[in-house]
């Protein structure tokens, strides 16, 4: 397995991504999107796709760049740093990883950036795939799907949706479907999400699904979903790690510049120690995030521990970073004119999406015998 530091190729990818995003998707671009009520900028996504980002996890035979999960994490980190919004996680990471294992012929569309996917798993306020209740009622050679999915990222803008539904009892009773969002009986309601991105509630009423729509095996939904879910969790952890770097850099800059009581506030030891502690947490989290990417690339079947570790750590560190960021900025950090609040809101959404801290910490504890 490669080391936990960036390889030369990864360093170049990171520099290129940073250069592109600083130029084309700085935080001010996120503000523009938000004020326009737009979850992401389709033009920006086209450019990302042209650079190969949409196909980062797709084999060259389907037109992908096949750079691997650590590379996908580096892209997610850089996007997190400037809060660049795009369908990257939903389509290029989650859907691509799922479909690749399932051997779908839609991979080339994903690699092109033309197929936008959403993942519809959760039905309650917490991530819990095994609690799926949505009905997949057998009918003829296929199924009829009925029920409600909530907190579906990119659910209002996606062309297709991966949806987990119950075709039988227990953990073996779940099936994953790949459904066109235009299909009859499927309706979406866009949420007014605090991070100004596209999250939606999807209502299924007797939506038709044929055998061709099944991803993987009937009853093997959790297994079919696992590669995509793990990849998404790792990439989301990377995004949060990048977000943390972004807000922290902003905060450190402020600490070095802002004067109160005739002193730079960064010279106050109480703030210094808190900043140093945050640095420690950031470094520790960065290791877990890099490690998750490496394990996904080299031992994907053993990646759950590494992925849950990364998501748990990244969630907590981002929370600390945004809270310290707003507090250390004082009043200005509370204003909407300033960017700090954007980081806080996205960190909260990232904390819940694909499993919160307790969800992943429990997985880590269980796998470690606690």
């Amino acid at each position, binding site marked *: 397995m490669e080391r936990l530091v960036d390889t030369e190729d990864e360093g170049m990818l990171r520099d290129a991504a940073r250069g592109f995003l600083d130029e084309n998707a700085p935080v001010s671009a996120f503000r523009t999107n938000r004020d326009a009520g737009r979850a992401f900028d389709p033009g920006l996504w086209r450019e990302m796709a042209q650079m190969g980002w949409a196909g980062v996890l797709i084999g060259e035979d389907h037109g992908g760049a096949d750079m691997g999960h650590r590379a996908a994490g580096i892209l997610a980190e850089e996007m997190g740093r400037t809060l660049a919004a795009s369908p990257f996680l939903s389509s290029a990471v989650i859907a691509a990883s799922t479909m690749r294992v399932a051997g779908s012929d839609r991979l080339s569309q994903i690699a092109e950036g033309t197929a936008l996917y959403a993942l519809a798993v959760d039905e309650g306020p*917490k991530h819990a795939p095994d609690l799926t209740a949505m009905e997949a009622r057998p009918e003829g050679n296929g199924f009829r799907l009925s029920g409600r999915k909530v907190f579906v990222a990119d659910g209002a803008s996606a062309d297709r949706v991966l949806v987990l539904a119950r075709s039988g009892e227990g953990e073996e009773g779940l099936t994953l479907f790949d459904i066109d969002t235009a299909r009859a009986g499927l309706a979406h309601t866009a949420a007014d*999400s605090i991070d100004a991105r596209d999250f939606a509630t999807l209502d299924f009423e007797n939506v038709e699904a044929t055998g061709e729509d099944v991803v993987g095996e009937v009853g093997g939904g959790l297994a079919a979903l696992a590669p995509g879910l793990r990849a998404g969790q790792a990439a989301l952890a990377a995004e949060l790690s990048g977000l943390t770097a972004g807000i922290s850099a902003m905060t450190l800059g402020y600490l070095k510049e802002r*004067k109160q*009581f005739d002193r730079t506030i960064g010279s106050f030891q109480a*703030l210094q120690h808190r900043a140093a502690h945050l640095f420690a947490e950031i470094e520790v989290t960065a290791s877990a995030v890099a490690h998750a990417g490496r394990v996904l690339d080299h031992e994907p079947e053993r990646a759950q521990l590494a992925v849950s570790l990364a998501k748990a750590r990244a969630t907590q560190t981002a929370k600390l970073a945004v*809270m310290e960021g707003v507090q250390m900025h004082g009043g200005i950090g509370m204003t*909407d004119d300033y960017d700090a609040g954007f980081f806080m*809101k996205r960190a909260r959404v990232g904390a*819940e999406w694909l499993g919160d801290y307790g969800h992943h910490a429990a997985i880590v504890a269980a796998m470690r015998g606690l």
Partner: protein
Amino acid sequence: MPDRLEDFRKEIAEWIAENLPDALRGQPRNEDTICWGGRKWEFRSQAQKDWLERCHARGLTCPRWPVEYGGGGLSRNEEKILRDEMDRAGAPSPLDSFGIWMLGPALLQFGTPEQKAEHLPEITAGRIRWCQGYSEPGAGSDLANVQTRAEDMGDHWLVNGQKIWTSYADKADKIFALVRTDRDAPKHLGISFMLIDMETPGVSTRPIRLISGASPFCETFFDNVKVPKEGAIVGEMNRGWDVAKYLLTHEREMIGGGSGGLTSGATLSEMIGDMDMVAGADPVIRAQAMELEVDSLAFCLTMERYKDMAESGAGVGHASAMLKYYGTELNKRRQEIIMSTRGSEALDWGEGLAAPWLRSKANSIEGGTSEVMLDIVSKRVLELPSK
């Protein structure tokens, strides 16, 4: 209890029973029911108007202020009885204002007879609404770093500069502000406490949008504003810092007591619902909620104990900074726990949970940051050395 006080209780209870409009009884206290008064004020109802006028006539908008300014002239004990009886009857406060809470006490302590006669009756009657102009972009925690300056132009001051975090500046008639009247004096000196009419040409305001949404806060700009010298400065010229310091205590108590919301309103269990249903068996959230509940209850008891200490004459002094610190940090924890318990559901603005969560982040900044409170405790209470 002395007979005199018992008589007072009976008398005031009867007065309330006769004068409090039924429509106002037991209303929740919020932006829709509070009466702020002022030139631009539009009463929410005839009942609100009646209640203000009746209370004012009886001196109950400012019960402890002297009768000559429209106050009630009550003693400390009488005021306590009044509050008890008002609470018992479910009566709303007839009038809220920064004039009552802040400018009034400052004028009573530092004002000239003319200033008192001019401003206090307007405040007690609810005819003039005041706002406070202390903070500036460069003067947050370091309030003494005031840059807004007032130049002496003979018969008037020429004021230029910018204030920030002026609550309701867009709705206020007048502002009491800290301005620099001596640019050569050391920081804490050279500042004066000045009264300015918001309708003076050159004064303008701009509302501040917070990360949690719309807010009562404004930026207030002074662009060559001419303030007549007569009665413009409260207290001594260049000693406005003394007035401000005196009032900071008032503000701190307001925020410390008010922001927690721990005794009043919904309990934590009401806010987060059935933990088993919502957050499952997650021990992390459960542990955090348990710890918060323990700390919240103990903090409520602490506010009670400090009140007991104050009332027993022992005094709490600078230790009140501890209450401000602890109460606001507790509220931030509370909001974090509500958000994580409610999960993805809470991430939609429409659910009404995100705004108070984000707003709570300001609790530990406004009215003196947590860091300033900890400095006060360590230096003034624990008497830790400065070098």
